[in-house]
Structures are given as C-alpha cells and as structure tokens.
C-alpha cells in the first residue's frame, strides 16, 4: 500500500496528482499530516503543496473536461467528506488518462459518486442562499449566521455580492468559525480571536441591533403567519422544503 501525505488543501490534492504522475506511483490512501498510519503499508510519500504544480494539473484538466465539471470538482471538494480526496484523485486520474471526456460516463462509479456529492453540496448552497437572514446592527452592518453541513459559504458569495452590493455585511459560518465581510468594496475572509455573543449564538444581542430591526423581524413573522392558507396546512411539506436545522436563525421560525 502506498500512502501520500499532504496538507488537506485542494491545491495540495492537485500537487499530489502532479507528483504521482512524475513518479509514476499512485497512492492507495491519502492522509493528512499527523493522521495515524495503517498497520501495513509499503511506502509513505510526503507531498509539498506547490501552486505551480497545482496549476499545471488544473490547466491539463481544462483540456479534458468542461468548465462546469471543473467547477464540480471544487464544489465536491467543499463537501469535506472524509473520502472525498481519494474519490477526486481517482476522478482526475481517469479524466487525464482517457482519450475523450469521461465526465458524462455515469456508468463509472467514481463519476457517479462525484456527481452525487456535487449535487448534495449544490443543494446545500441553494438552501443557504434561500434561508440565511440578515439582521441589521447599529453600525449599519447586516449580519447573518449560518451553520451548513458542507462548507458552502464560498459558493454563496457571488449571490450575496451581487444582490447586497450597496450594504455592508458579514456572513459567518458558526461551525467552521470563519466568515466573509463586505465593506462596500471588497469581500474579505475574516476570523475572530475573541468572539462576541452573536458569533456564538448567531443572533445579534439587542444592544447592538439597529433600532428598527426588531420591528422588521416581527413584521416578517406576522407576514409569514398571515400568508399560510389554513385550509391547506401541510406541515410535512413545510418541513421537507425547509429543514428544521435552519430555523434557529430565521425570524419567522424562531
């Protein structure tokens, strides 16, 4: 068994592909630094992430599969699922080796699996876009907390940047403890050493809420209640479309 050890970044994974081809040695297992080794193995190879190597693999892939499938690879990566690196490694290898594109060959288990994860992550991205809620703070910043099952915040940014371009905002992932702040010009990744309560609970405390925030939250809540047609109540469908794990941060469901 051959093990590659790398830094668990996407660039690291691409570097691993590069090194594998130049050594003509392919891993059976990908491990992060510090992860325990299996009992038996033949060789462990350390991969040093190198942006130039990563870029060359990416360029090579661009010639093999479509733009949309390429972005599918990064989306799938953001699932953070334990086996996803090995899956993508195999996918990339198949893509490179095949004379024609393999991306639509859903008869291949790796391609099908990638397509499935890609879809799941995309669904989560859509749900975050649907259900995240801004709360306005006294300083004018709109704050939203999310806790998605996959790391989809980077995928939601284009939507937020386009739609909320004339307001400052911070969207924060409570689980992964990072966020993006938009200052009317740039969007920057932010992490906080010391966390105010809203970075833990996801809700602005009243002393830093804009004076009208409460009112708009209750208006939305009332609207939400009024708009349902009593003769058609359907709690099952309601939950199915809007999973309960999002409710904590939605004024209409709190």
């Amino acid at each position, binding site marked *: 068994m051959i093990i590659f050890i790398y830094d668990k970044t996407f660039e690291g994974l691409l570097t691993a592909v590069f090194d594998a081809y130049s050594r003509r040695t392919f891993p059976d297992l990908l491990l992060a630094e510090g992860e325990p080794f299996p009992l038996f193995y033949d060789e462990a190879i350390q991969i040093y992430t190198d942006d130039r190597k990563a870029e060359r693999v990416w360029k090579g892939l661009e010639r093999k599969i479509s733009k949309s499938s390429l972005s599918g690879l990064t989306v799938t990566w953001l699932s953070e699922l334990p086996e996803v690196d090995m899956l993508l490694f195999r996918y990339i290898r198949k893509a490179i080796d095949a004379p024609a594109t393999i991306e*639509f*060959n*859903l*008869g*291949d288990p790796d391609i*099908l699996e990638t397509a499935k994860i890609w879809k799941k992550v995309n669904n989560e991205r*859509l749900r975050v*876009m*649907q*259900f*995240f*809620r*801004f*709360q*306005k703070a006294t300083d004018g910043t*709109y704050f*939203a907390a999310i806790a998605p099952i996959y790391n989809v915040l980077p995928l939601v940014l284009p*939507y937020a940047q*386009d*739609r*909320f*371009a*004339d*307001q400052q905002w911070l969207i924060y992932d409570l689980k992964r403890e990072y966020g993006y702040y938009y200052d009317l010009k740039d969007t920057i990744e932010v992490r906080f050493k010391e966390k105010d309560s809203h970075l833990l609970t996801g809700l602005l405390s009243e002393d830093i809420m804009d004076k*009208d925030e409460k*009112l*708009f939250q*209750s*208006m*939305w809540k*009332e*609207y*939400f209640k*009024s*708009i*349902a*047609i*009593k*003769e*058609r*109540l*359907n*709690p*099952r*469908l*309601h939950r*199915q*479309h*809007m999973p309960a794990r999002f409710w904590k941060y*939605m004024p*209409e469901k709190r």
Partner: protein
Amino acid sequence: MDEKVLEKLKILAESAKYDVSCASSGTSRSHKSGAIGSAAGWGICHSFAEDGRCISLLKIMLTNYCMYDCAYCINRRSNDLPRATLSVTELVNLTIEFYRRNYIEGLFLSSGVVRNPDYTMERLVKAIKDLRLIHHFNGYIHMKSIPGASQELVNEAGLYADRLSVNIEIPNEASLQALAPEKDFKSVFAPMRYIQQGVLQSAEERKRFRYAPRFAPAGQSTQMIVGATADTDKDILHLSSALYQRPTMKRVYYSGFIPVNTYDNRLPALTTPPLVRENRLYQADWLLRFYQFKVDEIVNDAYPDLELDVDPKLAWALRHPEVFPVDINKADYEMLLRVPGIGVKSAKIIIVSRRYANLGSEQLKKIGVVMKKARYFITCRELPTQTVNEVSPETVRQLLTRKTGKKTDDRQLILPFID
C-alpha cells in the same frame, strides 16, 4: 414605520394569499451600481409557509377595498372584513427592508378595485415606478394588472414590472359572468393582449437599439380557480394549451377552490379544497410544456377529467400499451419522455451516458429513474419479463396504486424553480 403598518401588513397579506402564482422567475438582472439588488434567472424560495407553499415574493395588496363583488373572492365588497390601504412609502419601505434582509426576491403587488380600473391601475403603477426610479430597487416585481385597465397604463406597468399577470379565474365566460358580474372575458383578455404587444414590440426594438426599454421581461402569467364551477379538466387544459400558444404566456397557475364565502350558494360547499385535482392539473400542465404532449392526448371527449389515482403520464401510458416497451438504449428523447418514471433530467442523462455503454436497470436506478414505475414500460440491457403488454394495463394500474401503508402525499406542489 410602526405598529400601524404591522396591522396593515397582516390584513393585506391575508387578503392577497389566495393568489398562487408566486414564482419569481424568468428574468436575470444583475446588480447595477447605485441600485439595490438583482434578480436571479430562477426564483428562489426564501421561506415556505405552513401550507408548504413557496414564499419568494412579498405578496401583498396595495388595498383590499374593492367595489366588485366576485363570488369566489374574500375581498368582495359584500364581505365585512378588516380593510386597509398602504401608502406608497410604506409599501416601498417594507419591500426594501425585507429585501435587504434576504427575506424575499421582490414584490408581488395586486389590488382591489377602487373607483375604477384605471384609477386603481394608476396607483399600482405609481408604486412600482417609485420603487424602480426613486429607490433604484432592482429586485423582482410581479404586478397584477387590473381587469379592464387601459392599454396606456398596461404599457407603463410593463416598463417597471418583470412580470405582469391578469387572472382568468373561471375558465368559461358564462360562469365567470355569473360569479363575477363586473367582469367578462374581454376585461381579462384585452390586458393580456396589451401585455403581449408590449413584450413583442420591445423585443423588436431591442434588436435594433440595445438600450430600448425592456417590457415585462419575464412575460405574463395567469391563474384559474379549480372546482368552483362545473368545468372539466378538458375545459381547463384546452384553455391553458391555447394560452401557451401565445408567445408571452409563461405560466398558468391552478388554484384549488377554497370556499371563502360559504354563504354564497352559487358556489359548491366543499369541505376541503380539491388539492389532488389541482396537483394533477399541474402535472398535466408540465406534460404540455416540457414533455411534448398535445392537450388532446391528455384530456379529450372520452376522458374529460384527469384521473385522480394515477398521474396523467401514467394514465396516458396505460391507455397506450401498444407503444411500449421502449428500448432505453435506442429510443429517441421524445419517446424516453413518454415512459412513466423517467423525467426530463433522467431522459437527458440516459441519452449522454448510453454512448459509453448499454445501460442496465442498476444504472437506470442510479440515474434517478423510478424503476418501480418504469419497469413495466421499458427494455434495457436485461431482457424484459413483465411489461405492460404481458401483465395487462389493468394489473399494472393495480400494482402501482396499491396502498403501501406508507403515507404518500399527493398535495406536493410543483417545483418552484423551473419556469
């Protein structure tokens, strides 16, 4: 903004909620600098009400005062219910503040008729014009055109709204006039025609001048109430199909009748709205728009109503065993679409992935084909054993409608994301 607006919001949302056309789709407009918002090409549902319906737009009436007396409507003048009117500023504020918080995609504005159709229409147009021109609101706007409004006002509305709609409500003119004495087909179809002219004309102009104004870029939609009159599904779907022949008609919505005015004995006394029928109509509508079915194949003199226990595609397949089984590895796209259990998406995947290798039932399952249904209608790599021809349509029907004990929900609403 204060508690008074909260009260009005409640009243006016209550009054607006029976209009089901909520999807905000069909326009892509990305952010303009100095403006608020964008519209994605598909509608995003930002919430789901407790009835399971998508909330994508702030659906509200400017006023629920109305001088008309439509029998099926909660806001008719003979009803004694709380009435309210929003000022344009209040409406604008609500829309923008909700939008900035990611509650909504935009606004769905309608109104009761006050004074006369043009007066009402003018106020609606003023509201959306202010939103666009003074407040630079760039989100989605769907405006309901008032029946009987003049062409000039419809033309102006089209400059600011993404979508305009005029509801037919009752699919047959005699019944419409019996239930809504102030309306007739002309009052509905004339504004529809104005919208169509506006859209087509603007498209023509934009070919020549890129900056010619856009006119209701998401086209128009309409709604029919189902189950308030004796009209059959054939009547309803033939009208839908005729409407879809018109170039700008994007969606026909169906709304299961809810007896909001139980005292009015011109209307049936239903205890629950006909939700299964409503769902079947949406499925049939889907077949018309995406599955290349002709309306006569779905409903005709022999079958004037959709069957409630099987979906219309399965119903068609059971009436036509002679075209099955379909060979998954050879059949063309149109034929794949006819197979119960195969949707638009899986049909497309089948077409691309069978280039690599012949497909078997395992792969079909993975692709997303509902094999429970499809197995009676296809052959794939494995040879068929029990197709509809061997076991007879009647048996297949029984097998597929047998209660499994598991609760299935026929009230599933349509996917809001596809236009």
